[in-house]
């Protein structure tokens, strides 16, 4: 860790902060919560307390801005610089600025808090099904008033829980109209506007009048981002138009064609070639919580660390289960000392073989333990077996956030760090003695942390060190014609897609049964990936379909956004 020259620090432990404005990307309550959690990262390990002020000058003034935003360090549009903060002191010192040309989320795609409806403002659940169709964004389907809505559970038809998605048709934020909705058309400088505009502003924020004449009433608010609208480009706030024509070819989804940087974009009219209207498609976004926790580190007196895993490392990387690195803790302790009383230690890593969660299935008769059959004996591993020299793995899966590569009785583990090398080989028989040497597929049930392993027509379930199985996959109601399960994708809590041949089935993990309406054809639902993929798994929010030593990576909108080498990209060989 490093501190700023002169060990700049606050001379008091009761630090105050104030949020000056909000990003249109998330509801203000979600942003408030992200900042509060980011402060808690530091207050958990120091004697510091953080109190939010709603007016006046706070030690840490937090704001969103774009490009030139009032200090000598302008932001640079999308990506690149995400935020900056000043070390402790008076005036601008201690303040934190976030680049609002970024797409702010919690790191895993749009965070849409609903309004009205019957879900008490719950977040949208993506994907959700409505009348048999799956939706990954808010939709206006089923409504005649054009208001975007979403289900707040996985299945609208079953649960009937819904809410409306933020849009200028329902509310604004900031401004002086108390969040009133936009009124269209409205008049501004004698010109009529039928949608939100950036006219009249130098900061690039989209706004509207909340009466029919801004000239007369001077009432206005800022327009919230819709999850279906583009970011940046020359059509910010407009929805993608599908299909659209680009260089004479028709596109039904966002594409990276035409760009050298691989970023996904779409046209906001039916023909880009004619209209040249475009914008970037919403992606996973940057975690406001993680970036804020880093910036607040600066605001407390920490400079950049050279330890890649530390929060204070200058580069952004998304981690799902964040815990403060020892280096960050040492740094902040150097400045402020440790928390008096018992110090909460950083969250310990969860051993994937230790089931620390209560098992809801414990009394389920269908899950009675069956006699354990040990099909392998512990074999010494050959340390010369190099994961980088394998052309094809039996299966690849994610366990507790780390990638596991299985091959012929051995496995390798890729720690979740960017530059880490594969660890292994380890003997499968050492860790999971009941398993055979060849594993066709595996997945971790996100709800119970149980590990499911498939080999041929049999499967095993590991809970810590105890094992159920082998059982026939027919017990899951998979057809007897299936020779092996070749891949698994978690779809929300309790549902897993199992792939075999050119089809896939959806397993209800709790009911231990295949859902109705399956199998479905892989190429119909997952267009653009090889229909004969032999490994299918989920990693960091993407779906991976592997054939030989290549992978096809698909984002949550089911767009193939990368094709690459397992060896170089996943194993970092």
């Amino acid at each position, binding site marked *: 860790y490093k501190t700023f020259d002169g060990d700049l620090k606050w001379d008091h432990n009761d630090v105050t902060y104030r949020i000056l404005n909000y990003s249109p990307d998330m509801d203000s309550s979600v942003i408030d919560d992200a900042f509060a959690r980011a402060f808690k990262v530091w207050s958990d390990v120091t004697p510091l307390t953080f109190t939010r002020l709603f007016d006046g000058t706070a030690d840490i003034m937090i704001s969103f801005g774009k490009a030139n935003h009032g200090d000598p360090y302008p932001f640079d549009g999308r990506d690149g610089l995400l935020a900056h903060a000043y070390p402790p002191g008076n005036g601008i010192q201690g303040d934190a600025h976030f680049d609002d040309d970024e797409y702010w989320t919690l790191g895993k795609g749009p965070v849409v808090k609903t309004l009205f409806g019957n879900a008490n403002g719950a977040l949208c659940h993506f994907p959700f099904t409505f009348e048999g169709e799956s939706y990954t964004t808010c939709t206006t389907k089923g409504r005649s008033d054009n208001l975007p809505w979403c289900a707040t559970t996985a299945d609208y038809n079953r649960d009937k829980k819904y809410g409306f998605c933020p849009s200028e048709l329902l509310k604004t934020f900031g401004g002086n109209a108390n969040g009133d909705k936009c009124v269209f058309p409205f008049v501004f400088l004698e010109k009529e506007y039928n949608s939100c505009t950036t006219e009249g502003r130098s900061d690039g924020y989209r706004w509207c009048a909340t009466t029919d004449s801004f000239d007369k009433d001077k009432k206005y608010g800022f327009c919230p981002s819709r999850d279906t609208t583009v970011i*940046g480009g020359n059509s910010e706030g407009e929805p993608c138009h599908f299909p659209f024509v680009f260089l004479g070819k028709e596109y039904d989804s966002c594409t990276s064609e035409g*760009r050298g940087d691989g970023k996904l974009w779409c046209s906001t009219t039916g023909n880009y070639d004619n209209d040249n209207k475009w914008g970037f498609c919403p992606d996973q976004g940057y975690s406001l919580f993680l970036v804020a926790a880093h910036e607040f580190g600066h605001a407390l007196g920490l400079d950049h660390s050279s330890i890649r895993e530390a929060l204070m490392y200058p580069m952004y990387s998304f981690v799902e289960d964040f815990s403060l690195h020892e280096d960050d803790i040492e740094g902040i302790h150097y400045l402020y000392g440790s928390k008096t009383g018992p110090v909460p230690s950083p969250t310990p890593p969860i051993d994937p073989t230790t089931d620390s969660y209560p098992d809801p299935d414990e009394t389920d008769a269908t899950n009675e333990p069956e006699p354990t059959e040990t099909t392998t004996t512990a074999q010494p591993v050959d340390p010369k077996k190099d994961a980088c020299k394998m052309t094809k793995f039996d299966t690849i899966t994610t366990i507790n956030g780390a990638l596991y590569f299985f091959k012929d009785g051995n496995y390798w583990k890729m720690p979740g760090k960017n530059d880490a090398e594969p660890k292994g080989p380890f003997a499968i028989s050492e860790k999971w003695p009941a398993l055979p040497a060849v594993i066709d597929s595996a997945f971790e049930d996100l709800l119970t942390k149980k590990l499911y392993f498939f080999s041929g027509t049999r499967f095993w379930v590991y809970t810590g060190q105890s094992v159920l199985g082998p059982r026939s996959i027919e017990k899951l109601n998979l057809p007897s014609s299936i020779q092996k399960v070749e891949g698994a994708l978690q779809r929300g809590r309790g549902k897993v897609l199992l792939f075999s041949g050119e089809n896939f089935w959806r397993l209800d993990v709790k009911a231990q049964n295949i859902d109705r309406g399956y199998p479905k054809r892989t190429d119909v639902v997952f267009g653009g990936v090889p229909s004969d993929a032999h490994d299918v798994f989920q990693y960091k929010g993407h779906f991976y379909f592997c054939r030989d030593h290549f992978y096809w990576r698909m984002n949550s909108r089911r767009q193939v956004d990368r094709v690459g080498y397992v060896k170089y990209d996943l194993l970092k060989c």
Partner: protein
Amino acid sequence: WSLPLKSIFVTFPGDVVKNMTDTELAEGYLEKFGYMDTIHRSGFESMTSTSKALKKMQRQMGLEETGELDKPTLEAMKQPRCGVPDVAN
């Protein structure tokens, strides 16, 4: 599947085009995040200073210290990051 796609790159109106060579990008990065400035002050010649600054940046980022603008270094410079300089000015 392995056939390479023929890509045509276009200029998108309103895009924040960072039309710069790798060298320009690297020099901008080294200066913006404080690596170059420190070296300038210590009075080295330009070629040496870029190489030294690169080495310093590579050390900070945990990259191999080649002192050259190699692919991993260039990739690191393109990663999203915090705007606070790595070397205090």
